[in-house]
């Protein structure tokens, strides 16, 4: 078994008296695709924020390759941000409307002092996410929601991270586009050995994209394991409840 790339131990986080996360541990190996599921208020988004060092846990640690990660100045986290990036939830609100797309996608390279030809990297990234290289000269509003989410993925990939942490990366997209973006994430992850932590309430997305799933309830891990196993024979009533709640479309006629 390979050493974990990203590791969380005993994470606890409280907001004004309520415990959002109550002793959560997880391990992510290189190239692995992990889903975090659970109902509203189960602590999914809090966990994502802690894994991204956007918040300080009240207890517990996050480590990347064994090196502890602590929220702090941008400079002190530069090494971490080069290797762990995020894709935001709402592609409509995550781009500066007054910044051309090329500059937006290059921004992490500038912020993180990544050396090299940023223009060439941006063109390469735009192609990788299925857009034209000349998209760099256009403005965010010229793109549809699905295209903007592709841009957000390109921006996250810019510094060649090892891990993407995405909180509901496709929930703002409708069916056809949602499937395209899910498949794009899977393909990029496979091609670059990129590990994913995907927070989602959409179990269909989880099943298509991830290998392993961690189920949260009231801030605790109630179950984790391979998606195929957990979804077929859930050990926890919480997992079974989530699965039973998904409305099914009648199977396709043979």
């Amino acid at each position: 078994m390979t050493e974990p790339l990203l590791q969380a131990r005993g994470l606890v986080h409280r907001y004004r008296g309520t415990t959002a996360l109550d002793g959560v541990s997880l391990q992510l190996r290189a190239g692995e695709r992990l889903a975090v599921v659970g109902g509203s208020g189960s602590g999914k988004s809090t966990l994502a924020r802690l894994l991204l060092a956007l918040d300080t846990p009240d207890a517990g640690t996050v480590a990347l390759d064994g090196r502890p990660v602590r929220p702090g100045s941008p400079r002190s986290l530069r090494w971490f941000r080069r290797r762990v990036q995020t894709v935001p939830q709402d592609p409509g609100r995550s781009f500066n409307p007054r910044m051309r797309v090329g500059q937006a996608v290059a921004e992490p390279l500038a912020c993180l002092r990544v050396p090299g030809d940023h223009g060439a990297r941006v063109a390469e990234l735009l192609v990788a996410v299925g857009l034209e290289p000349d998209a760099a000269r256009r403005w965010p509003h010229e793109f549809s929601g699905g295209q903007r989410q592709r841009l957000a993925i390109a921006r996250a990939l810019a510094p060649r991270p090892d891990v993407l942490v995405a909180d509901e990366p496709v929930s703002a997209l409708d069916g056809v586009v949602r499937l395209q973006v899910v498949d794009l994430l899977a393909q990029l992850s496979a091609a670059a050995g990129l590990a994913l932590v995907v927070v989602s309430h959409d179990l269909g997305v989880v099943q298509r994209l991830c290998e392993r799933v961690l189920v949260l309830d009231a801030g605790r891990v109630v179950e984790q394991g391979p998606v195929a196993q957990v979804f077929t024979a859930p050990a926890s009533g919480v997992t079974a409840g989530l699965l039973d709640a998904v409305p099914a479309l009648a199977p396709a006629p043979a």
Partner: protein
Amino acid sequence: MLRVHDLSVALPDRRLLDGLSFDLAPGERVGVVGSSGAGKSQLVAALLGLTPPGLAVTGSVLVEGTEVVGAGPATWRPLRGRATALVAQDPGTALDPLTRVGRQVALPLRARGVGRARAARRADALLAEVGLTGTGRRFPGQLSGGQRQRVALAMALVGAPRLLVADEPTSALDPTVQAGVLDLLDRVTGPDRAGLLLVTHDLAVAARLCSRLLVLDAGRLVADGPVAEVLADPRLADVVTAARELAVTR
């Protein structure tokens, strides 16, 4: 119940809805599906007289025989809440944060002259009906998203409407809470009860409750028929395939 003929909604330079015609029978449950920007929410607004200023609505919408295109408040007053009622998409913004939920649910009754005590009793009964017994004294901010969505549903039901229009009533909710709200909609609508016009981008949600689907694409009605028939329509193949690909298999 509802008769829509050649309904269009337009900006000065383009049409957001383009010549829609369809009827809804009393108690019928119809899903309106389509991708983002197809015109689903514009349709809801136009049917309920809620189209924002600056958009031109043309054509005809008869609500129980009354023409409502271009109608003013006097025409709507006897219809709103009784002939039609709306469950909005986002329960976080549809409720007054400063009014206790019991009072909000009772408000439509008070507005039409029902006494305070009777309106309060009816509101409590409805809150119980949606599984929120004893929450009448709370403020919306003290409830979860799913609970707020059920308050919005109770509010829509308080006038015993004959047609419930629900615009993505569960898209802000997680699956467990969604299932509860869908069960509730299933109980309160159907033959001999209220009709339902359910707007959703989720085909499985529509199929769960509705017998008929309307499909919008770029402002046009491109399909209208029984659920199974519409799902088999080759023009919708990519949408249906995506829904199946992203469905959970166990």
